[in-house]
């Protein structure tokens, strides 16, 4: 597909590809190379990408429920990342509170190290029950050369609890993906293995790369427990600092989000020899496979089969109902990264086909998985921008668009049914029961009577020239 909006932006061609008849990738510039990804954004192209700070503070560090979430920088970074992502836990300190060193001009000129140290001391005095202080560095404090690592070390001695310094300044990397990496690496280096607990961990696993969006954990934690396994540490949805410290004791890591969290699984394999398996905790086939693979590691295959059979029977009536309502619909999925390939199979199980797939920060391995699963003729776009998204919605007319909050209102203004895949409309969507929620939301989006009203009753914008005191007709 040639994008009209990219007439003057030839550099976008290598980020757009079709799945060819031979199953290969046909790139927009005519070459047979694979789709280009994880490279800098074209300036001014209206990208949807965020920054490294967002990936670290918002995604990986933010869900830790008993850490003081302290941004070292100006106020905006802390304000915008506060309390909008529903990474829930069994307590809400991490969502209700945000802390910031509030750098002003004087601090920028004379350095912010002293102020940062004071902030850490004051914050931990105000909230003595917090188990650690997480500090996220920003563009300005990095540029003026504040040695946050050193401040963190000093502070740790003064307050007697871990002070974790994330070097996640916004300009690093090409997208929020770098922030995930920094988050993994820092938590691993500073927390994991810092305590050696007694106890029997032989039937324990860590779930890596689930952030408990709208309580996703509730849809699969009990399944693993029913198989006979205990989740020791969840990285990082509904997790405490103390649980992060002992995660090296689990004999197996189960990796769900393979973009934002494979890093820590790799590091744990290298340092502690902990093996990991890749799973998808969405959809029937994938969730079943996840339980089977995990159980096989512990020799609990029979229990897994029992759980799967019981759960599938439970959701079957719901699935049957929705499948006949969703059959044959086409989907455009645009997510951060892995959810795209996690969901192609799930949507197929509901009778729907993904005809366009796009990610904000996917890497090569994400696109490999996407291409493998898509049907011939499907379109793939890396790091799509505003005009491209509008053109896809207008020209390819998907029956459903699955994306995030920013894109939602574009879809609505164009009359395209939409489900929020980032933070869910009414989640959770994971596991077996979550899939029925997902199907219910899709059904609601597709079959809401408003679309019929729009088709039959919407009118064009009045031909008028807007002036500040009203509307004047123009020729």
């Amino acid at each position, binding site marked *: 597909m040639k994008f009209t909006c990219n007439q003057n932006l030839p550099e976008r061609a290598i980020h757009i590809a079709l799945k060819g008849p031979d199953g290969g990738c046909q790139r927009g510039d005519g070459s047979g190379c694979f789709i280009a990804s994880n490279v800098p*954004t074209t*300036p001014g192209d209206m990208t949807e990408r965020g*920054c490294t700070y967002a990936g670290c503070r918002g995604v990986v560090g933010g869900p830790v429920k008993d850490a003081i979430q302290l941004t070292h920088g100006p106020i905006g970074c802390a304000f*915008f990342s506060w*309390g909008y992502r529903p990474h829930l836990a069994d307590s809400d300190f991490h969502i209700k509170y945000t802390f910031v060193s509030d750098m002003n001009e004087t601090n920028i000129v004379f350095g912010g190290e002293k102020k940062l140290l004071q902030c850490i001391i004051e914050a931990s005095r105000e909230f003595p029950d917090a188990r650690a202080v997480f500090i996220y560095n920003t563009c300005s404090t990095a540029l003026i050369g504040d040695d946050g690592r050193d401040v963190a070390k000093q502070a740790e001695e003064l307050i007697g609890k871990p002070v974790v310094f994330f070097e996640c300044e916004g300009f690093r990397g090409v997208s929020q993906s770098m922030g995930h990496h920094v988050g993994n690496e820092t938590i691993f280096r500073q927390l994991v293995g810092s305590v050696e607990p007694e106890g029997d961990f032989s039937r324990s696993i860590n779930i890596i790369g689930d952030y408990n969006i709208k309580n996703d954990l509730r849809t699969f934690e009990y399944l693993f427990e029913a198989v006979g396994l205990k989740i020791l540490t969840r990285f990082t949805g509904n997790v405490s600092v103390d649980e992060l410290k002992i995660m090296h004791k689990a004999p197996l890591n189960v990796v769900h989000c393979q973009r934002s969290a494979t890093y820590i699984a790799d590091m744990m394999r290298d340092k502690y020899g902990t093996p990991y398996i890749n799973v998808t905790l969405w959809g029937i086939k994938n969730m079943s496979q996840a339980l089977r693979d995990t159980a096989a590691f512990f020799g609990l295959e029979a229990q897994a089969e029992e759980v799967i059979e019981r759960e599938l029977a439970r959701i079957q009536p719901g699935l049957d109902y929705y499948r006949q309502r969703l059959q044959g619909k086409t989907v455009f999925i645009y997510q951060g990264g892995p959810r795209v390939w996690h969901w192609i199979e799930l949507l197929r199980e509901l009778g729907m086909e993904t005809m366009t797939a796009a990610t904000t920060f996917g890497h090569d391995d994400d696109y490999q998985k996407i291409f493998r699963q898509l049907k011939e003729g499907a379109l793939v776009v890396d790091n799509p921008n505003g005009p491209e998204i509008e053109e896809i919605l207008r020209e390819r007319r998907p029956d459903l668009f699955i994306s995030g909050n*920013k894109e939602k209102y574009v879809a609505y203004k164009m009359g395209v049914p939409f489900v929020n895949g980032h933070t869910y409309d009414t989640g959770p969507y994971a596991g077996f029961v979550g899939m029925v929620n997902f199907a219910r939301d899709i059904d609601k989006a597709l079959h809401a009577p408003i679309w019929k009203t729009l088709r039959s009753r919407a009118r064009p914008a009045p031909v008028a020239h*807007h002036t500040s*005191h009203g509307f004047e007709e123009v020729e």
Partner: protein
Amino acid sequence: MSVITTQDRAVAINPTRSCAPIGAMLANYGIHGAITINHGSQGCATYPRHQMARHFREPVEVATSSLTEKTTVYGGKSNLLAALKNIWERYHPTMIMVCSTCLSETIGDDIPGIIDEFLEQHPEVTIPILPVKTPSYIGNHTTGFDNFLKEIANNLPDRRKKKGETNGKINMIPGWVNPGDICELKHILREMGLHGLWITDYSETLDGGYYEPRPHFARGGTTVEELRSSSKSLATIALQRYIGGEAARIYERRYGVPAHVLTMPIGLANTDAFVDTLVEITDHVIPEALQVERARLLDALVDTHMFTTGLRVALYGDPDLLEGLVGLVAEMGMTPAYVLTAADTMPWAEHMVELTEELGVESEIILKGDLHELHKRIKAHPVDLLIGHSKGKFIADAEGIPLLRVGFPVEDRFGYHRRSIVGYNGSTALVDEITNLIFERRASSIVSNTLVERGVEGPSYVPISLPNGNGKGI
């Protein structure tokens, strides 16, 4: 007597404010067909977009020059040049505003110089390209809005103006308000038979309708041509001192357009002052319709006073909004016990002390404050009502106090951007809503139209000096 305190803590915990670029982006949304390029990290565009989408429930587009490590070392010039070119070629906007960030300011990019270079390379580009300084470490979100307005006032208006030449309009600078507020202000001007030139007007661009096909640019907004003619207006009225007040004075100094800087017209006295100013500028009489609306507000204040008199209220937010709200709060017989802002503006605080004294209420004016500080104050000495943006919901939930949502952002309720809190109508709506919040919490469920104390009904507190006070509440 009212007192001023300045919060003395290095760490900000639950701030009430955000940072400068979002103010400039919001103001730029009020110009038809204008596009913002944020010169900095991608997050500096994506975060404010997300925040605005949550408040307005509209598509919000902001371009970014996508600075990375390499550009941080070598300067962001090539990225900004590319961004300007791409935005021009793909959108053909009517104007481009380039706002800076911590990053581009700290590395010292010369944004006006880069824009000049772009215009030299592209003689076909004749639209205005306006640089606005918005590093996050100076001021807050209001600073970005105000800086944008100053740049508009300095750079866009036509300098050639014949003696006595006028466009017959009034420059209206509403400041940081909601689309609904702009609609209400337009209504007042229309009723007065006046034409406003809105600097700027996002009443439709950020509260738009559904049309098929979707227009290329969102409908609405002040046009660049109108802004060019703003030097020929009869007068300028700024309705917020710290957002647009300085821009109004620039119009006076540079173009001889008289400036009127007023308090945000919330409540009876503040709206009267606004309407009186319109009369003074134009000699138009106050029309019947506005007289009726004014009388209706008075009537609402009378009807509700037994439910509101003596209540203690905590307010937080931007200085201009607080100043307007305190007027209405006092008119309703309530005490603005805590008035907290994140700004560090002593002249404002001193003005607030004078104002509260004139109004006969006692307040603690808190500068450089955050919501954690306010929460501690409320825990120590409870209030009956919180007034401010959505982030106060954590205090409201913890303490069981109703929250009246005003200002920005209101992200946990629908349609607040469409409401108005200004003018006689907006004030009447606020009086109703405040009374209803008190009712919801304290009204008897059996007998309508009256309040019944339920159990230990919390923090209501009437100072002993009040004639009907027993110190225990109404």
